[in-house]
């Protein structure tokens, strides 16, 4: 299933902050959303999710527009991981992951819900944490828990707002590798915003650059990225080097 965004204008209160965004994110692919701070990356992600005010345009999954679906239906399709997720006190990891089953479950989690939760925890390699309290975990571990929660929703699209910005290198690599693996194995479309260009080049299939609320460059596969794009978006002079068959950006 692919996610399609057409002529999207969205923002807060009266004025749109993002204008005329057109985007397609294909299934099985990881798309990195990049741009300077304030470019509107978070706003775009939240708008696709449906939390920010949409002035114009539509968001469609497999041709079906979001406004034609019920809240619950939409929740079954799209999952979201915010940049700094809130951490509830005295709640266990398993409980948080089970919350991902909300769009699917009745009043209480059933056996299937528990099964999915265990599976997801196993896949991400954090089943040993299932009985720990979330407030005891490190930032990276909690990020993985949030991703597990999002995966428990069994979504077709996964939106992540700066999933690795606050993590150390070990967890940055772990999270990004896991995301890429999940996209391939489950055919999920992943859109994530990133700051680090090199991480984006290594771990994503497509890049989208935003600046001042507009999409500046889009759909570039990592192999066609040039210093001109980076100069335009970030205003920094760089050089593209090829290492191990992939491009890397040197400042």
């Amino acid at each position, binding site marked *: 299933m692919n996610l399609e965004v057409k002529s999207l204008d969205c923002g807060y209160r009266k004025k749109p902050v993002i204008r005329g965004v057109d985007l397609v994110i294909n299934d099985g692919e990881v798309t990195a959303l990049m741009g300077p701070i304030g470019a509107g990356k978070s706003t775009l992600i939240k708008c696709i999710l449906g939390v920010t005010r949409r002035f114009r345009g539509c968001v469609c999954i497999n041709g079906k527009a979001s406004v034609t679906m019920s809240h619950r239906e939409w929740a079954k399709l799209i999952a*979201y991981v915010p940049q700094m997720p809130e951490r*509830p*006190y005295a709640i266990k990891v398993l409980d948080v992951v089970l*919350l991902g089953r*909300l769009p699917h479950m009745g*009043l209480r989690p059933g056996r299937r819900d*528990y099964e999915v939760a265990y599976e997801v925890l196993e896949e991400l390699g954090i089943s040993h944490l299932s009985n720990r309290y979330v407030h005891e975990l490190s930032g990276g571990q909690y990020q993985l828990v949030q991703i597990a929660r999002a995966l428990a929703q069994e979504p077709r699209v996964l939106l992540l707002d700066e999933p690795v910005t606050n993590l150390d290198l070990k967890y940055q690599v772990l999270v990004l590798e896991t995301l890429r693996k999940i996209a391939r194995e489950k055919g999920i479309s992943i859109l994530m915003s990133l700051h680090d260009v090199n991480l984006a080049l290594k771990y994503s299939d497509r890049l989208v650059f935003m600046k001042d609320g507009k999409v500046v460059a889009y759909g570039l596969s990592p192999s066609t990225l040039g210093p001109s794009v980076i100069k335009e978006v970030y205003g920094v002079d760089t050089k593209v080097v090829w290492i191990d068959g992939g491009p890397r950006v040197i400042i």
Partner: protein
Amino acid sequence: MGDFVTVTIKKPRPEVGRTLRSVVLNIVFALLVLLLFAVDVVTGTYKLPIAWVYKALINAVVPIFKLPTDATLVVLHLRLPEAVSAIILGASLASAGAVLQSVLRNYLASTYTLGVSAAAGFGAALAIVLGFGGFVIKYHVPVITSPYLIIPMAFLFSSLAALTVYALAYLKGAAPSVIILAGVAVMFMFSMGTSMLQYFADNPDATHAIAMWMLGSLENVRLSYLPYMALSLLPIIYYSAVSAKIDALGLGDDVAHSLGVDVRGLRLTLILLTAFQAAAVVSFVGIVGFVDLVIPNISRLIVGNNNARLIITSTIMGADVTLAADIISRVLVPPYVIPIGIILSLIGAPYLLLMVITRSGRYEP
């Protein structure tokens, strides 16, 4: 995939163990409620043999015993309403407090900060003052012994307060900060109103009556009030049904929305229901605090923050603590009965201090 599923079933499922523990705890607490109820009906200033009390209670359902009329009257119209209203009071306030603290993401939230209790106090004060020949009408019947005016007035104004907070939240966005600010503003407004009434009424009896009412006493509850008070228990069913959604709110509004929760609608509904619970209880009993603040915090230490468990355990524990407080209020200085609001404050205030002292940075408000 098939192999993996087999392994899962063979493992001892941890979720069974967790639920079992809280079920056992809840059963223990519930039995405690029965025990405390049995003790509470027996304590009181009117001397009655213990056996008579239970016989009178059984008689109410199946008349098989012969008892003197005064015993039956005292048990059915004094002891029973006190004990049952203690249970209702504790259960509904504790559940309201648990829900509010989760919804507002603040462990110091209580129905008091919604302004409902203060508004009830104002309504009662107004009724009392009018009865004592206030500004407009002179009554010749001492209104203080006739509660017919006080209870509806208290309920009217507490409902007004609830609706005001609801309206403000509806218009300005149902964020926790908005709700708390609105509630505190309403609380101050009505507290000030009550003080002004006491001042301008210029009647020491009225002032005394208002002060006494506000302390909260179960003695004022009549048997016929109980069905109305019991209405405040109904929202608990709703809370249990949406407990998973309340949990989702704890992950943040955006995430909750992504999980299909109507964040604004849910928050507004819960505010209204908890305020109604407080209004229904406080209008009959007076201002009783601390139950909704303290009990959920204690339950949280025992069963954690999972709302499904927290709400049930808080409800039962609330009934326990209020019954215990009622018993204490009767046996502390016989033959006087200390108003229950005072006893609960006696328990609650040191507990809050303890919470502050042992804080050690563990609590995230």
